[in-house]
């Protein structure tokens, strides 16, 4: 696909109220669109990105030059067909690809850094709904997301039930588990332990916590893969050498791979954004927002829901999707659910999977 035009961006006219009690004025939301909006504005699909994703769902990334993160799913003739649908993907607030986040300028003309308010998944969704308002889109044909994108899709369905006719949540959960929070805390502590983090005030200092962010990414990346997937891909294979070095170089291919993933990530992602977005995910508990009963979150919803999990995903295992399905059934909502078999763990939703394609295409209609 052709490189994207310069990022589209709206500045929200109203201050954005946040779950933390503050409100944020002058919020900018950067987004991309693909495919034409129909005259009746009824063919819009909001795709929500995951923790380290961005609005470049189906166009080249401006920093890395790599193809969009879900090009195999979104595009002309793809399961989410941009010949038929107008696809919108916005960078979440707290992010670092053009939407307001910790690297943005605060009213005092300096970067927010750690003065940026802690945000939630619902706050991200509020910003996305404000974007839809600005774009004049009242009701989405569908809201779609995997992982943290799925959390946004569920949150939108619960908090703005009239805004989406279909809700497709893939490899996700309605609440972060202790294990999910624990892994995120490891990542955050790695960032904060890096002396170059400088309490978050690294902007303009010529130093940034690349080492810490890289370790955070390496640890997180393991959780996105399955043990079988790692074994299949790397086993105990050595990296460009015939024997162990009896040192601490990346002797093993898996070490080399993780280091590469970690350092590549620091080229395109802001460390403070990583802190804020992981925090938002950890705070996510859709039932808690609705009196402790998840079914209440979806009471009266007229939307159709589809949940998909993967059997090798141990980050957001099938039981988490079933928990949501249980609540949707109790709420009387129209829900589909399928656990797909895939070898690659949580990341399966981003990878080649013909059955996923068929489910997405069939559900989107």
């Amino acid at each position: 696909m052709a490189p994207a035009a310069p990022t589209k961006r709206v500045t929200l006219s109203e201050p954005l109220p946040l779950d933390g009690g503050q409100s944020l004025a002058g919020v900018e939301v950067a987004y991309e669109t693909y495919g034409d909006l129909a005259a009746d504005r009824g063919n819009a699909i909001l795709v929500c990105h995951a923790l380290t994703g961005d609005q470049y769902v189906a166009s080249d990334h401006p920093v890395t030059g790599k193809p969009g993160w879900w090009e195999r799913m979104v595009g002309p003739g793809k399961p989410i067909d941009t010949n038929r649908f107008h696809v919108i993907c916005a960078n979440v607030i707290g992010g670092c690809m053009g939407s307001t986040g910790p690297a943005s300028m605060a009213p005092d003309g300096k970067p927010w850094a750690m003065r940026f308010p802690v945000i939630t998944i619902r706050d991200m969704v509020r910003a996305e709904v404000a974007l839809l308002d600005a774009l004049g889109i009242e009701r989405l044909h569908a809201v779609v997301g995997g992982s943290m994108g799925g959390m946004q899709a569920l949150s939108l369905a619960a908090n703005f039930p009239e805004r989406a006719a279909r809700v497709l949540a893939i490899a996700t959960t309605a609440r972060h588990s202790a294990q999910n929070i624990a892994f995120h805390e490891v990542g955050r502590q790695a960032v904060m332990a890096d002396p170059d983090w400088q309490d978050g005030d690294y902007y303009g200092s010529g130093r940034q916590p690349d080492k810490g962010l890289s370790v955070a990414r390496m640890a997180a990346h393991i959780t996105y893969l399955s043990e079988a997937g790692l074994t299949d891909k790397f086993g105990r294979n050595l990296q460009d050498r015939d024997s162990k070095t009896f040192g601490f170089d990346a002797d093993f291919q898996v070490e080399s791979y993780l280091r590469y993933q970690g350092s590549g990530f620091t080229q395109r992602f802001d460390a403070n954004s990583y802190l804020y977005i992981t925090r938002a995910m950890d705070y996510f508990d859709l039932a808690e927002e609705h009196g402790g009963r998840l079914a209440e979150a979806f009471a009266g919803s007229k939307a159709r829901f589809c949940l998909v999990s993967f059997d090798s995903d141990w980050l957001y295992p099938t039981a988490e999707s079933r928990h949501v399905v249980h609540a949707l059934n109790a709420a009387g909502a129209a829900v589909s659910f399928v656990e797909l078999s895939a070898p690659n763990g949580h990341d399966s939703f981003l990878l080649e999977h013909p059955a996923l394609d068929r489910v997405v295409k069939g559900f989107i209609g």
Partner: protein
Amino acid sequence: MSGAATHLRPDLAVIAANVAPGTRVLDIGCGDGALMAALGAKDCDARGMEIDPALVERCVSRGLSVVQGDADRDLADYPDKAFDYAILSQTLQTAARPDRMLDELLRVGRQAFVSFPNFAHWRMRASLALGGRMPVTRHLPVSWFETQNIHHVTVLDFRELVRAMDVRIEREWFFSGERPVGSAGANWRAEYALFELSR
């Protein structure tokens, strides 16, 4: 919806013809969704449950609302009387506890349609009585060691169970292959049976 199936199995065709239009229906063990599609064409709000992920995927990809689940466990997810009809076709004999399954059907649905293979069909009796072997027939083609049918049942057994459970039989249909069979001698002549139940 991707058109009503051109050919429904006879018990499913009877169910499709006898479910009132515009009602809420749960099809438990919905397979590839053929009955749900037919009910959708009657403006029913049809939901499905299916244990086989490949079949669930086919249902979802044709736009049906189907949940991958195990009826023995996951019917508990649904509130009381969430549906006008609960349908269990050719699945009762695979349940861990068919009596409890019937209870659940009539808890989540105001009425139920239940069909099952009749183990007292004459071919079965012949195979067991004359051949001394567990029957393998055109309607139950799987050998004893790999069949999912763990609770074989006959028409008489079923009548006795529902009577004991205070479940009312509203209507009943019997089939041999594609053909309907009268209720006289059904326990001999029917390969499978369909009952409409209420409580």
